[in-house]
């Protein structure tokens, strides 16, 4: 089933945008999705990710720019002439047709007479061989979802578009389907473009993630790259949690920048700072909660030299099994999040205790201080 790569499954968007009246849903966007990759468009609702997907599918006409599949310009082709298929949000299965006919729909429309074998194979692939003669409403949400995938995949599209395909499923089923979709993608080798607001889903499944916000791509990269090196406050906050501290540039020392924050000093490798730095200028310093170690103030002396440190008082602690999540009141930030693995638990680390937070400078990242420090925090909660 695997196709030989000839780049005909590349999705190339150049300068595409979409405006509705005075509202710009998608700002001019250039994007190339290489053939055979699993690509995720991640963002909160209303960020333009679904509009982008619909422009690839042909369900929405771009206001400007072109959509190419490989070398073929499909910008003005109606959906029924494009070699792409979509798995719709809440599936859009045909309620008057049984599962078999739903899956056979695309084949029949292209004039293929003997569909039985193909449909049965496809139903086997998604483990629904027994359900062929049932109507969609007789199936569970997860089964309907698999029918939607089968109905699209049977056409061997060059690109499969998935619009929040797992949104309607409960958490456990969603996890299971994430793995299932990933397995299918690897098996068939088709380019997948997946739209989701769930950052965990995007990170588990996709090879490349594009984080969208306000009709623009904020950052594009491999999940680990996005997580470890966010370039904007939105990405830092939307993808997981980040502690962001406002700091002033003190001196530049070789490859490191020394910063002043709340009376203390922090070190940031220059390579990990996406903002231009000048002495006296402002920078946002970021650190992920799980990179921080927590030591009781009485033992501050045992902390090795060369680590960034911040003192504070534990405001809150919640035990969640694998880790304990602390909220710490510090001079630089009053809600400093710290996640500590429950390996050896220090009994003194309870709310009210004085502590020292410390981490390796290599885990610190720097962002442009001109941005909204809270961008992306509320969106995630809303999504």
């Amino acid at each position, binding site marked *: 089933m695997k196709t030989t790569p000839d780049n005909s499954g590349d999705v190339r968007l150049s300068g595409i945008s979409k405006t509705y009246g005075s509202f710009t849903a998608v700002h001019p966007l250039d994007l190339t999705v290489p053939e055979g990759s699993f690509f995720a468009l991640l963002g909160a609702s209303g960020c333009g990710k679904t509009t982008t997907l619909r422009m690839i*599918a*042909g*369900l929405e006409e771009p206001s400007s720019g072109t959509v190419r599949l490989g070398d073929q310009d499909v910008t003005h082709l*109606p*959906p*029924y002439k494009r070699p*792409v*298929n*979509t798995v*719709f*949000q*809440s599936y*859009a*299965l*045909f*309620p*008057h047709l049984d599962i078999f006919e739903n899956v056979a*729909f*695309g084949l029949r*429309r*292209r004039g293929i007479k003997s569909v039985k074998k193909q449909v049965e194979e496809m139903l086997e692939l998604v483990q629904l061989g027994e359900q062929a003669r049932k109507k969609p409403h007789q199936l569970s949400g997860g089964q309907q979802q698999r029918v939607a995938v089968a*109905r*699209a995949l049977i*056409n061997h599209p060059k690109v499969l578009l998935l619009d929040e395909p797992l949104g309607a499923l409960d958490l456990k089923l969603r996890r299971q389907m994430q793995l299932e979709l990933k397995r299918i993608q690897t098996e068939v080798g088709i380019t997948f473009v997946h739209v989701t607001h769930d950052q965990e889903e995007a990170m588990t499944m996709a090879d490349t993630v594009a984080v969208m916000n306000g009709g623009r791509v904020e950052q594009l990269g491999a999940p680990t790259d996005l997580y470890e090196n966010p370039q904007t406050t939105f990405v830092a906050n939307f993808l997981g949690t980040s502690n962001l501290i406002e700091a002033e540039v003190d001196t530049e020392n070789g490859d490191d920048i020394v910063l002043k924050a709340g009376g203390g000093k922090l070190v940031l490798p220059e390579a990990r700072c996406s903002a231009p730095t000048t002495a006296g200028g402002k920078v946002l310093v970021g650190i992920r909660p799980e990179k921080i170690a927590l030591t009781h103030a009485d033992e501050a002396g045992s902390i090795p030299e060369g680590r960034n440190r911040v003192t504070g008082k534990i405001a809150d*602690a919640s*035990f969640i099994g694998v880790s*304990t999540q602390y909220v710490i009141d510090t001079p630089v930030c009053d809600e400093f999040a710290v996640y500590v693995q429950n390996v050896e*638990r220090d*009994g003194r*680390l*309870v709310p009210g205790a004085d502590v020292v937070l410390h981490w390796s400078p290599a885990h610190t990242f720097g962002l442009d201080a001109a941005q909204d420090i809270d961008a992306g925090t509320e969106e995630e909660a809303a999504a």
Partner: protein
Amino acid sequence: MSTLTEAPPPLAPAEPEKRPPRKRGRFTPYWLLLPGMLWLIVFFALPMIYQASTSVQQGSLEEGYKVTWHFATYWNALSEYWPQFLRSVFYAAAATVLCLLLGYPLAYTIAFRAGRWKNLIMILVIAPFFTSFLIRTLAWKTILADSGPVVHTLNSLHVLDLTDWLGWTAGDRVLATPLAVVCGLTYNFLPFMILPLYTSLERIDGRLHEAAGDLYAKPWTTFRKVTFPLSMPGVVSGTLLTFIPAAGDYVNAELLGSTDTRMIGNVIQTQFLRILDYPTAAALSFILMAAILAMVTFYIRRSGTEDLV
């Protein structure tokens, strides 16, 4: 986090309040049914029984009628008036088909394309109901009058020659011809077709159209394979709501037709009100009812909409 305290004893679960079982509630459904049931008994079941008994009576106005189980009335009525029966079915069917052909595109437009004009068009569809059925039909008399614009236009386009040849109109006249009666029926029952069609079309998820397009269906194929099948409940109820009253209608044939276009409704009306032959009129009513019931049952079975509704 690590301080251990003794777990507080679990709160005793609140005793569920014991209520005396409510007996009154058991009869509530029956009380709710009562008004409707009474209405149906008084205004539907009793007249039906009365009518049924009338149909098997014999006698005259002067001497009074007696139940003699004279079923021959049915046979006599049928053998005398079968042409009017056939004509009724034919006219009603023609009007139903015309209603469907006119109403479907309109309902489709309202449901999917009208945008902000939706409500206005809906009001226009319902607006005729603000005037009496009779007055509207009389207005058609003027519209189709011999010297009216419709006849004039059709005549100059030589359409009347064609319809005359087909037997739908007679000479230069439209009024008092089958065409006029079918047009009147179509006009009067069109909203009863549009409304159920609109309701069922409006319920169709727009994403199904997108999904069909995405799966290589051209717009017309999408209509044939997705939209139309899903609108079948509306098609069935619309055709029933049009066909059943149209088959029993007598106003259109009376006002727009002639003695050659009499429908079964006209016969029943004459028998009841002019000739005062109550048994024949009652028998004709029952034959009409039975015929419609049989046709409708067959139709619903055939269209197989039970599991769509």
